[in-house]
C-alpha cells in the first residue's frame, strides 16, 4: 500500500482556494459533530432514543454494537439521507438538520440548507454504489466537475492521483462491473475523497467483500486515517479495524450509547455488562 505521503492535504489546500467557497470556520469552541437529544423513529419503532454524543475534529470514531442498534442510522442522518424525528445535529456549531430563524429559533432545514451543509460530508457505502453508467475515472470526476465546478483537467489529474493512492492506477478506463468488490470499494473511497470531505462516513465498508479482500481495504483506510486530518466515523464489525484506526469507540445498544472510550479500554476492560456480552459474541 501507499507508503509515500498521501496527496491529500496538499490538494485539500490548493483546491479550497479556487474551487468553492466552503464555510470552514475553524471554531475551536465547538466539537465538529454533536448529536443533541437526537431521536429517530420509524413509525412506532424508535431507533435512536435521545442520543447525545460528540466527535472532535480529526477524531476517528468507531461505532460498534449489535445489529439494529442504530449505528448505520447515525451515519445516514449525518449524510442527510434521512431526517431526524427530534433533536438537533450540529456540525461545527452550526445546525445540520435545522436552520436558524431570525429570532434564533431552529426550524427544520430546507433542501438548500442541506445541500450547503452536506458539502463537508462524504460517505462510503456497504454496497459501494459506484455508478455503472460511468467508467472509473468519471465516477470520481463527475461530482467535482459538476457539483464543485472544478476544472475538468484538474479533476482528472486529481482522480488519477487518488486512484494511485487506492492502488488502482491501471483501472482508470475500466467499467465498475469489471472490478472485484474490493476494487469497487477502493474506487468508492477515492470518489468520496475527491470531494474533499471534512467528515468521512464509512458504513460497514468491508461487509460485502470476500474475506481475502477485506485486509487491503482496511489497510487503505488506516493509511488515510494516519495521513490526513479527515474526521472519520466508521460503523464496522471489524474489531481489528476499530482497534487499529480509531481513538474512540462508541458502543451502542437500543439506540443509545452504552459506553465510550479508547479502544484499549473498551476491548480490554469494558465497564458495561452489555459491552462485554457483545465483545464476547463477536471476538
Amino acid at each position, binding site marked *: 500500500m501507499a507508503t509515500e505521503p498521501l496527496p491529500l492535504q496538499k490538494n485539500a489546500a490548493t483546491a479550497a482556494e479556487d474551487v468553492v467557497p466552503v464555510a470552514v470556520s475553524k471554531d475551536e469552541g465547538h466539537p465538529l459533530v454533536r448529536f443533541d437529544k437526537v431521536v429517530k423513529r420509524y413509525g412506532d419503532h424508535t431507533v435512536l432514543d435521545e442520543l447525545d454524543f460528540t466527535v472532535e475534529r480529526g477524531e476517528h470514531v468507531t461505532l460498534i454494537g449489535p445489529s439494529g442498534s442504530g449505528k448505520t442510522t447515525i451515519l445516514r442522518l449525518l449524510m442527510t*439521507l434521512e431526517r431526524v424525528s427530534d433533536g438537533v445535529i450540529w456540525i461545527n456549531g452550526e445546525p445540520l438538520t435545522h436552520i436558524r430563524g431570525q429570532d434564533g429559533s431552529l426550524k427544520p432545514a430546507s433542501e438548500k440548507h442541506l445541500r450547503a451543509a*452536506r458539502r463537508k460530508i462524504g460517505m462510503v457505502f456497504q454496497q459501494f*454504489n459506484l*455508478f*455503472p453508467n460511468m467508467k472509473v475515472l468519471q465516477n470520481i470526476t463527475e*461530482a467535482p466537475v459538476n457539483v464543485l465546478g472544478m476544472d475538468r483537467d484538474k479533476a482528472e489529474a486529481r482522480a488519477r492521483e487518488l486512484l494511485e493512492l487506492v492502488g488502482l492506477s491501471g483501472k482508470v478506463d475500466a467499467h465498475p462491473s469489471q472490478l472485484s468488490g474490493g476494487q*469497487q470499494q477502493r474506487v468508492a473511497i477515492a470518489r468520496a475523497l475527491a470531494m474533499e470531505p471534512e467528515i468521512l462516513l464509512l458504513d460497514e465498508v468491508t461487509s460485502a467483500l470476500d474475506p481475502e479482500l477485506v485486509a487491503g481495504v482496511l489497510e487503505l483506510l488506516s493509511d488515510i486515517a494516519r495521513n490526513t486530518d479527515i474526521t472519520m466515523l466508521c460503523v464496522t464489525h471489524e474489531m481489528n479495524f476499530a482497534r487499529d484506526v480509531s481513538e474512540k469507540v462508541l458502543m451502542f445498544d437500543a439506540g443509545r450509547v452504552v459506553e465510550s472510550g479508547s479502544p484499549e479500554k473498551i476491548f480490554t476492560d469494558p465497564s458495561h455488562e452489555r459491552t462485554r456480552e457483545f465483545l464476547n459474541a463477536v471476538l
Partner: protein
Amino acid sequence: MNDFFSAFADDLPQLRSGLWVTLEATVFGALAALLLSFVLGLMSLSRLMLSRGVSRVVVEFFRGTSLYVQLFWLYYAMPQLTGYELTPVLCGVLAFGLNYGAYGAEVVRGAVNSVPRGQYEAALALNMSPLHRMRKVILPQAWVQMIPSFTNLLIQLLKATPLLWLISAADLMTAIEKLRSRTGETLTAYATLLVCYFVLAYALTLLMNLLERSAKRRLGLAAGGKSLLKSRSAVSAAQAGGAR
C-alpha cells in the same frame, strides 16, 4: 394470383407512398409517445401531489379509452368542436402518441423505480442536485430497463397503424386494400399484408435490440451477438448496480 402481382407492380408508386405513410405514422407516433412517456412518467415520480395527480389522470384516461375512439374523436369530432381539421396522418400520430405515451409513462416510472436506491443515495452523498442525479445517474441506468418494454410498445404501435385506413389515410393497409378490391384476390392480398407487417416489425425489433446492446455496453454489461436476433427481449435481471 398473377392478376394480383401484375396489379401490384402497376400500383408500386401508391404502395410505396402507403408504406411511407405507415412508417411516418409509426416513427412520429413513437417519438410523440416517447416524449409523453418521459413527461408523464417523471411527473408521476414528482414529490408534488398535483403533478402526480395530473399524470395519473392523463395516463388512466388515455389507457382507458380505446385507440379507435380516440382516432375517431380526433378526426371526426374535433373539427366540429374546434373548427380545426387535422390531416389523417397527424390524427394518427397524435392518437398513437397519446395512447402509447400513456403506456410508456408506466414503463418510465417502473424503470426509474427499479434503479437501486443506493445509486440515488450515492449521488446525494456526492451532493448532486436532484436534476443532476436524474440526468446523469438514474436515467442512464433506467433507460436500459425501458428498452425491452418500449420495443413491445413500438411493435404494437406499428400494428395499430392499419387503423389509419378507417380515417382514410393512404397507408400501406389502404393501398393493399384497394388492390384487393380491384383484383378480388383476398387471400393473396391479406397474405401480403401479413408479410409486410411482419417484416416491418422484425426490422424494428432488430433496431431496438441494437439500441439495447449499445445501452448495455455503456453500463459495462456485455451482450452476445445472439441477443440481436431475439424477437422477444427479456428484461435483463442482471442490472449492473453497484453490487457484484
